């Protein structure tokens, strides 16, 4: 039972990283119909930004704001930095390619991803870096008789809060309606007086920024970060997005959490080496059963 609980908490934690990255994927896809393959690398960049802030000014940030305060500052830094990077990326790599069609966009996204990954390597080196123990909160306590770390609790609480906020913005606010309208039909949205440029700006800022926060949390949780971790997380998050139904906000959250849970339960009870195979087999099975993902809408093509 203790193992089960451990795997459950672990799965939910990883799942919430996936979910946050998947949210960004899904938001960008929903509006732009673009699979942003560089999204995972922005997540990695977020990890490095947080790391740099904490290490470079470790004494200062941690002394001034405390452990949790330092973590919050690092997240805010990554959030802002990656948000800016996201907007910049859209301007530089995607906007000029839109007229060329979707396949060209994929290549541009892959180019961006290679660029970012090697940029990180050039700046921080190819060897993995570690978040120093001194900046990571590590208090353990027992919750209903089961052991958890305070970091896990904070990660879960914060991730769920962020997901709720995003869900609220997209589903319940006027601006969210503008986002959804743009996702459904861009030209009609423009005709209805929606400034599509603002929507795109917002999507490319917020989506990656969430990944930036996830990057810092991931760094805190696993401590080790490496320049190429974006591929793995990007791929997993993309899988989660599709699993939930691409372009669907609650779908991305559910997909991410489910993926994390399946992964860690399978690793705990069956085999760690085959866990990713299991995940992809499940994904394919789900798509055979529901070709547009768990929450994806069935779209009959009009002929």
């Amino acid at each position, binding site marked *: 039972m203790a193992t089960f609980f451990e795997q459950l908490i672990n799965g939910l934690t990883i799942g919430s990283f996936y979910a946050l990255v998947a949210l960004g994927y899904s938001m960008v896809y929903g509006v732009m119909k673009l699979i942003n393959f560089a999204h995972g690398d922005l997540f990695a960049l977020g990890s490095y930004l947080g790391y740099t802030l904490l290490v470079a000014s470790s004494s200062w940030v941690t002394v001034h704001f405390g452990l949790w305060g330092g973590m919050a500052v690092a997240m805010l830094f990554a959030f802002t930095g990656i948000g800016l990077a996201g907007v910049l990326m859209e301007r530089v790599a995607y906007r000029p*390619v839109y007229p060329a069609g979707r396949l060209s966009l994929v*290549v541009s996204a*892959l180019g961006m991803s*290679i660029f970012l990954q090697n940029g990180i390597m050039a700046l921080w080196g190819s060897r993995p870096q570690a978040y120093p123990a001194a900046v990571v909160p590590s208090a353990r306590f027992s919750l209903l008789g089961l052991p958890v770390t305070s970091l896990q609790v904070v990660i879960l609480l914060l991730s769920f809060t962020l997901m709720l906020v995003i869900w609220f913005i997209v589903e319940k606010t006027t601006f969210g309606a503008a986002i959804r309208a743009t996702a459904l039909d861009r030209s009609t949205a423009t005709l209805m007086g929606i400034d599509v440029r603002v929507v795109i700006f917002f999507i490319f800022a917020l989506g990656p920024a969430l990944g930036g926060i996830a990057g810092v949390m991931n760094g805190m949780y696993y401590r080790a970060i490496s320049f190429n971790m974006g591929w793995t997380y990007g791929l997993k998050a993309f899988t989660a997005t599709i699993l939930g139904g691409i372009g669907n906000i609650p779908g991305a959250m559910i997909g991410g959490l489910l993926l994390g849970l399946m992964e860690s339960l399978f690793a705990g009870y069956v085999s760690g*080496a085959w866990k990713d*195979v299991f995940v*992809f087999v499940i994904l*394919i099975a789900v*798509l055979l059963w529901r*070709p547009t993902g768990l929450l994806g809408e069935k779209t009959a093509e009009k002929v």
Partner: protein
Amino acid sequence: MGITENILKRVGLRANKPSGDQPATFWSKNRGWLVLAITGALFAAYPFLPFITDYWIDVAFFVGVYALLGLSLNIVLGEVGLFDLGHTAFYAIGAYVTAILNTTLHVPIIVLLPLSALIAAGFAYLVTSPVIHLKGDYLCIVTIGIGEIVRLTMINNPFNLTGGPNGINGIGGPNLFGLAINSSTQFYLYTWVIIGIIVFGLVRLQHSRIGRAWNYIREDETAAEASGVDVRTYKLLAFVLGAALAGVAGNIYASKQMSVSPQSFTFIESSLLFCIVLLGGLGSIPGSILGAAVVVVFPEVFRQFASYRLLFFGLALMLMMIFRPGGMWPRKREGTGLEGLGIRGLPTKDEDLILVGKPDLAILKPASTAVVRGVRLPPVTVAMDEGMLLQTHGGTLKFGGLTAVNNFDLNVRSGKITSLIGPNGAGKTTLFNMITGIYKPTSGQIDFLGRHITGLKPHTIISYGIARTFQNIRLFPSLTCIENIMSGPQCHAQSGTWAAVMHTIAEVREERHIVATAAYRLDQVGLWKYRNELAKNLPYGKQRYLEIARALATAPHLLILDEPSSGLNDKESEDLMVLLQALVKEGFTLLLIEHHMQVVMGISDWVAVMDMGQKIAEGLPKDVYNNQRVIEAYLGKEDD
């Protein structure tokens, strides 16, 4: 025309036809041969050039391996437009099959060359056939998943077969009838000879009905299916062929490296292949080879920048897509003339083709005979009402709780024009979609020519003789007009992949028949002079005619037109009526959805009226015109 010249023409290095006023020089007459000979000589001489070291010969060898992979992905991604980001899986299968069978059972490498291809192809068939119906991005993630599953399986070393993360060492080299291939130069030549053979086959496929069918699917899947292309089969064929070529590349790679390991088959590798195809130009054979050269040579040239080289590479990919989104050597379809189609034995004057394609009207006339145009149709089993070509009995289609078509009996009399009218949203197009197989009826029965066609696939129904056009025109936009129409005779064609590669007599004859039929129909609708223009460049009205010509080219008994006059002005509508009446004279039966009352009343022999999914009236045009219920359906009921 020599084979060589033929190939060169098709890859785009066409010799210009010597025009009448210029005397044909030796150069212009034999340009195709010469270009091929020079290219071949350059390739053969490359390793013997004084400044070329073994290192650069190996680079050229790897360009070859990636060219092969690029060509193999180009079939799936470039020709059919399937989003495959896991193509490395098939490459890995080929390499591991070679490694395992060579190191354990000592099967010679040269025997494993075809065997790797075969096993990779079989694997592709098994894993893609359940998921081939998935659309765009969903298929993409599945291919990524397949790629990852294969790679992880290799790492996990099942049954001690794959050697785990370290892979397998000690693979032998190929031995060609006693000649062992082991030096860099030998491997280089061996690989490029194989590529040469494969390119020959691919060029021929590209210019056959197989290649065209792939392109139709890429351009518009629904329109392709509705023009008689068996979409599922052609997609699977692309995957199987692509995997076979990737398997060949895997075999060559494994025997050169003498070892394989999972690191060579990552997702990054798959995305590089994707970039190769896009860099070269979708569906372009020389483009894929050029793309491979860039992807392999670029990092080599920038080696002095060490870790920055991939940074530049990423940048270069983005810049390429911004400044040359079509790729470096895109396949040009317009402006190559009919010769660009690569069909042998066409008349020297294009116009003569129209006469060749003129159908024998005597054969077309009696639309009720069982065997027409050599198509093997199932035997007549259903008794239909006298003189009827098509009948629906209680045709019903429900979308969830909504009944779009309710218990509809439609009768289409042979050799006549029947019109289906009704307010917007009445369910007319839905009924058409049921008849042509795009939707499966919830209940009811559809009979055509004495056969049940209820629930058959669109490409089967069209081969029985029902062709259609779409309300919102669906052409193959980036193909030429003649290529668009050549999709029509596709549904009656028999030649397979092998025949297309070998240019068998029957295949060549069939291709000539296809292009001639297309030429005749193109001329019939007055678009002959646009034959080499891309369909998307035609004005709207002409696109409608092109679509009608494409439907006619399937040699149907029944032609179903969905709002043919929409978007046409009065003059154009009158021209259309003239054409439709001429078609009836030729022996076609017509069924129209039409809103333009002048057209309906002017040419219809029979009119059925639909409202809210139900038939509310039918009869002669003038009777329907004055029917109270019909007027109410269109104009609403007056309040008393």
